[in-house]
């Protein structure tokens, strides 16, 4: 049902990847076969939810079909029955290293990469490490500036942009927001939003999909970057607390403290989020205004109390109403904001502990 679902094998034919046979799937790309066989190649321009672009050339592999030898971009080339794929031949590894070293000459130092430092999800520098690519082989291009954009959510650092165009593809073809586009040609290509280049004045809805697809530190979550260190960051998969779509999110924590959110790309929402889920689903949790102790009204004022005192008072008052006015003089309201488990207990509390069906939730309001 989702775009990531692979089609079932239609024949008995196999695709052989580095000697490992996997079922041939008609209409699927070579990349799918090599991943199914358990191999991985860098895919810097590939966004699994969209049509492949085939521009970064990092996923190039050797294929042999009917004795013909070819090198193809595995993200765009279709599988063929009996195809033999070799993913990591020496010359291909050298080729990938060369591309990475060219990209290194265009980008800022790895030690300063915001995605490496704060998130640990930088695909580009992960590939640089894996292929032992070194800076300095090609002449370094001048440093490019951060976009002078005052928006509070998205940091755009041109010095880490590798012009993979994933962000513009996601913005235009997945979100269909049309907030960013390309400006300039060749090495002066820049990701750009119309007119004055400020996202707050563009059609950007701050869904954050561009920062999540960006394979480098060019686009990052400004609310998080610089505040976390990748090696200490932990991720917990859960569900966005806002609307009824129920998008999957990952809460980022460090030393037991909430630091931010990322989408859960494995969830049925396929990594989509809106501005609330991406940028607004965690800092309210840390608000100083959170309730920290039970409160009991004394002399007309709500004052701190112990749990024992608070629960004892609630139980005794409920019981006295039950005795004098009957259980139907008490009403319980559950919540569309709370978990199903809590809602279940709330209705059971009304029916079992109090003895009334006066239980409702805000689904009608």
């Amino acid at each position, binding site marked *: *049902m*989702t775009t990531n679902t692979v089609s079932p094998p239609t024949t008995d034919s196999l695709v052989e990847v580095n000697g490992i046979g996997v079922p041939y799937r008609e209409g699927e790309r070579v990349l799918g076969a090599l991943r199914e066989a358990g191999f991985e190649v860098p895919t810097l321009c590939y966004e699994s939810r969209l049509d492949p672009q085939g521009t970064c050339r990092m996923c190039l592999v050797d294929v042999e079909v009917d004795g013909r030898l070819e090198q193809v971009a595995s993200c765009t080339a279709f599988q063929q029955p009996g195809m033999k794929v070799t993913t990591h031949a020496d010359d291909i590894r050298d080729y990938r290293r060369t591309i990475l070293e060219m990209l290194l000459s265009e980008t800022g130092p790895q030690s300063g990469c915001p995605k490496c430092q704060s998130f640990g999800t930088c695909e580009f520098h992960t590939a640089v490490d894996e292929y032992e690519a070194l800076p300095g082989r090609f002449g370094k291009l001048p440093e490019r500036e951060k976009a002078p954009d005052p928006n*509070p959510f998205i940091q755009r650092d041109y010095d880490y942009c590798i012009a993979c165009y994933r962000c513009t593809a996601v913005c235009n073809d997945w979100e269909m927001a049309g907030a960013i586009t390309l400006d300039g040609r060749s090495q002066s290509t820049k990701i750009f939003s119309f007119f004055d280049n400020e996202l707050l004045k563009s059609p950007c*809805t701050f869904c954050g999909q561009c920062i999540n697809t960006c394979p480098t530190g060019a686009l990052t979550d400004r609310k998080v970057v610089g505040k976390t260190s990748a090696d200490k960051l932990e991720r917990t998969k*859960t*569900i966005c*607390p*806002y609307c009824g*779509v*129920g998008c999957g999110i990952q809460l980022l924590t460090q030393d*037991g403290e909430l630091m931010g959110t990322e989408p859960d790309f494995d*969830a049925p*929402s396929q990594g989509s989020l809106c*501005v*609330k889920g991406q*940028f*607004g689903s965690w*800092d*309210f*949790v840390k*608000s100083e205004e959170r*309730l920290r*102790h039970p*409160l*009991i009204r004394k002399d007309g004022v*709500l004052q701190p109390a112990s*749990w024992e005192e608070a629960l*004892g008072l609630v139980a005794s*008052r*409920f*019981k006295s*109403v039950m005795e004098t006015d009957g259980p139907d*003089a008490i*009403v319980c*309201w*559950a*919540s*569309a904001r709370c*978990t*199903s*488990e*809590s*809602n*279940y*207990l*709330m*209705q*059971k*509390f009304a*029916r*079992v*502990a109090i*003895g009334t*069906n006066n*239980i*409702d*939730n805000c*689904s*009608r*309001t």
Partner: protein
Amino acid sequence: MVGKGAMSNSIEELAGSKFLLVIGSNTTETHPVISLRMKKAVRNGAKLVVVDPRKIELTRWATRHIQPKIGTDIAFLNAMCHVIVKEGLHNREYIENRTEGFEALREHLEMYTPEYAETICGVPAQMIVDTAREYASASPKAAVCYTLGITEHSCGSHNVQAVANLAMLCGNFGQENAGVNPLRGQNNVQGASDMGALPTDLPGYQKVERPGVLEKFEAAWGVKLPRRRGLTKITALDQMVRGRMKAAYIMGENTVVSDAHASHSKRALEACDFVVVQDIFLTDTAKLADVVLPAASFAETDGTFSNSERRVQRVRKAVEPPGEALEDWRILLDLFEAMGVPQSLTSASEIWDEIASVAPILAGISYERLDKEGGLQWPCPTADHPGTQYLHKEEFESGKGVPGFFAPVDHIPPAEEPDEEYPLVLTTGRRRSTYHTGTQTGRATGFELLVPHEWAEISPQDAAELGVEDEEIIRVSTRRGTVEVHARVTDMSPRGTIFMSFAFPDETMTNVLTSDSYDFITETPEFKACAVKVEKLAASKAGSPAAD
């Protein structure tokens, strides 16, 4: 009517529909991620007809925008049905095999000619005809999506019936990429109802008054259960004002801000002898409480949420709650114990197992499966059942072998229509970056730059007539209350209509304005229509910080 209050189909299926009728749903703002599937459907060649009095953002992708007068959906929908039946575009086989009441509906629809409907809803007759033909020809891959623009009317339940009639006429239930899809507003509004937090239903939509149901739960829970169905929230609030409702236990709900006719809700809780509020913040409702219990937020608890498409998904604890705050379920277990009815449950997972044991639609779902398989959509009756992508595949869910019923409905105007004194209509809703009463988005940094304060969105024509400029502070009044608010002059608002959200209650308590009418079946308040007047502030007060 058919089945239960949930999307009949799945979110992802919308991308594959050939025709989408989006009525009373500001999808790009209220369900942004669902709107992506709608936009994708359009890219795939589907027709998208947006029915909304306001020129909402989704109309940018629509193949047609229909702007009925507020509260006239039934006239429009009935006329669509009229055209379909009159032109013989309905699905005879489907109607014959799986529905009842078609003849009565056919007779009822006679009078709803497109020309007659036009006099009520203001939609050009030819537009109704074209839309009806497109819907019928795309069936059975035609989906209807609606949100509170359908339900938050005094005729809300009749609106829903009119939608169901249309879908049944063309056989759009029990088909992939089709159906009737209410997009639920809150993260777990589906789950709260699934769990039986309803005065009429026990967990899994088992009716309190249906023979055998109470006995089953009495056996499971080991107690005698109350026979009489309970009171809805609206009725309970009324009973408080009358002094008959003595105590209230409110979990996670900011009633005095979110409910219509706010002064009434506040008066009710003030009249109630003993109010317990369990929440994460000291909300306006909690400020009225006698006891406030500090709860854990979603990030601090284990559990599940059920989304709009009936999908049960795991919520996982990432951090500890602050101070002495506890998970809602833990507080409830402690309170059971304090009441002398201890429960032998110690974790969210054990609570879920009990839920699965009493609610057959959830019986096959366990935490183990959710962790392994991701979310599962109910009905999921057994451990080897894959979950249900779309409902009514074999028969309507209202009972095995029981067909869907056509229920003829008539146009019912909003309880309060504009007049000389209150000449405009106020309709309320949400904006993308400000959620509900603002307790969460109001505390998320950066969001103040997206929507800085409440706006009363007013059409350029109305603004010109009143001499109101963009961002000027204006006074908006109804028979129930008055607020001061920044005007936003925009052609999103049609002439005669203003729009407000209710996300900035500290400055602009929108719900002091809203109507005290509600649907007589569901008791859902009429948030979507009331008569208002807009006034410029006196020169001396202009620019005062009152509403900012």
